[in-house]
């Protein structure tokens, strides 16, 4: 048993060590000023933060709906809402194309009425990332809402607070830790999103080529650049993990 455990550890740790060992530290300076790398970095930050914002603004109310209200077919709808967590991202990308593509269910009327098209645009990247990452925020916040003592909301109501005021002044602050964890998970997932993005938004440098896409592409042209981009993503992951230390690092 113990040996299998050690083997599992090696399986996870060795690739990370490999990445660190192979990093071309001397080229760090000029790689970080490389146009492709910088563009990918900027685009990734922009789109992942936009996806995080969208996920928070929409995902918190969704979590509240799932945790606090009863409606028909709730179990089924809840399962659909968190499906992207287990769905292969490529499938998500195909589904997004069929819905929001130029000839898609929503994409066609959207194009005809407003002239807005989403696939192969930066907005499309944000949509793909939100689709994949929002469920992580929803399940975390929903769990937080469920474990919260609801009588605090009862107190707020007897004190004269409307549902909205009670949500802003009582529920949200009490939800703080869960919301923070959900946002961190959501952002990390959006930042690393590959499959749905490349399928739905393509791989256009400066417009839809985010960091994971750039890593994949650079691997064929400039391995050092790929390694460096990977390292940046790794650093971000470590930061997120440290921010979530209460949840995943305490061996309690």
């Amino acid at each position, binding site marked *: 048993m113990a040996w299998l455990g050690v083997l599992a550890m090696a399986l996870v740790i060795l690739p990370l060590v490999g990445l660190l060992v192979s990093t071309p530290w001397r080229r760090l300076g000029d790689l970080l000023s490389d146009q492709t790398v910088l563009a990918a970095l900027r685009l990734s930050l922009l789109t992942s933060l936009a996806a995080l914002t969208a996920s928070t603004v929409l995902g918190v109310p969704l979590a509240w709906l799932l945790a606090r209200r009863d409606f028909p077919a709730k179990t089924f709808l809840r399962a659909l809402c968190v499906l992207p967590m287990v769905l292969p991202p490529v499938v998500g990308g195909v589904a997004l194309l069929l819905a929001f593509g130029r000839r898609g269910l929503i994409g066609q009327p959207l194009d005809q009425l407003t002239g807005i098209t989403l696939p192969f645009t930066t907005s499309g990247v944000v949509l793909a990332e939100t689709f994949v990452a929002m469920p992580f925020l929803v399940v975390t916040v929903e769990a937080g809402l469920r474990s919260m003592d609801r009588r605090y909301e*009862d107190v*707020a109501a*007897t*004190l004269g607070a*409307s549902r909205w*005021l009670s949500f802003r002044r009582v529920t949200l602050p*009490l939800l703080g830790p869960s919301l923070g964890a959900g946002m961190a998970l959501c952002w990390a997932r959006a930042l690393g999103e590959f499959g749905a993005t490349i399928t739905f938004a393509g791989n256009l440098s400066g417009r839809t080529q985010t960091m994971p896409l750039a890593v994949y592409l650079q691997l064929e042209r400039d391995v050092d650049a790929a390694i460096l981009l990977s390292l940046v993503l790794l650093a971000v992951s470590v930061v997120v993990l440290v921010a979530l230390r209460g949840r995943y690092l305490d061996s309690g």
Partner: protein
Amino acid sequence: MTAPTPDAWLSAAARQQPARGGLSAQVAVTLGTLDLDVSLDVAAGEVVALLGPNGAGKTTLLRALAGLVGLRSGRVELDGRVLDDTAHGVCVSPELRGAGMVFQDHLLFPHLTAADNVAFGLRARGMAAGPAREAAVDWLARVGLPDAARAKPRALSGGQAQRVALARALAFEPSMLLMDEPLSALDVEARLAIRRELRAHLEAFGGPCLVITHDPVEAIALATRLVIVEAGRVVQDGSIEDVTQRPRSTWIAELVGLNLYRGEARGHAIRLPSNQELVTATLANGKVFAAVHPRAVALYRGRPEGTPRNVWAGTIGGLDVQGDRIRVHVDGPLPVVAEVTAAAVAALDLGVGGDVYVSVKAAEVNLYPA
């Protein structure tokens, strides 16, 4: 900390109180296995204690009055305003009812200071931050915590937190006050101190007030009227004297320490369900309660001789020491509790499992209609 005396708060508060109306409620709620169906009128300024076993529906009743639980049917009117009327589809939501509620474990918002907790109700009603804060600090002083404004709930003791919770419930001048075991989470010392203060605040409040409690002493200290709720129904509603002298259920009789029997009276004899008979000095007919004070129960080793009285045999089931007296639980066809002196226990050599004769004078059987 120097707090104003209770009398000072009382007169200051009494001057400020506007005239208020009472509460009139018929409440029917189904919640899980609980079937609650209760009618209750509470006059303005009246303090009613709700007593009853766990799961009787006391908390559900308060939550229904606060609008936190929907009614199956019923009507609730407070201060001349209809809050619920299922027959006409009226149901005022909790935030518009004006019911101040104090919970067992205070439930102060942990992320807000004491002053912000107290100001919450005023802010929710649209008062500006400055005046709301002033009013909150004023209320904190009234409950004896003039220096606690900036304290977070976790820095407060249980007693202090419950005082803040009371201030929070009173600060927005509610039309009615609902308290769910406000003192039960406190240690004995804090409980005694706060009970005294609470009484002064309740007297000053002026609106109808309902307090759930488990403790008959607390009920008597705080309330002028007791309502006993068992299994979702009111089994007794009366003055303290009425409930403690003439209990109408075994639960409340045990709580106030009386032996209670229910039976059918015919002349001087009462036939009990166990087919035993009790003889009384009073003449009565029909269904009756018979209450016997434990001190009126005498115990003997041999069958006592003499005047007509109630005598039966039993086995000692247990002994409780209460101060300088001992309560002896006698099992048998007619279970009874006797209160005797420690000397008597020694002289009679009363031990658990021992056989005794129980004797109660006919004049000591207190009879009232069931």
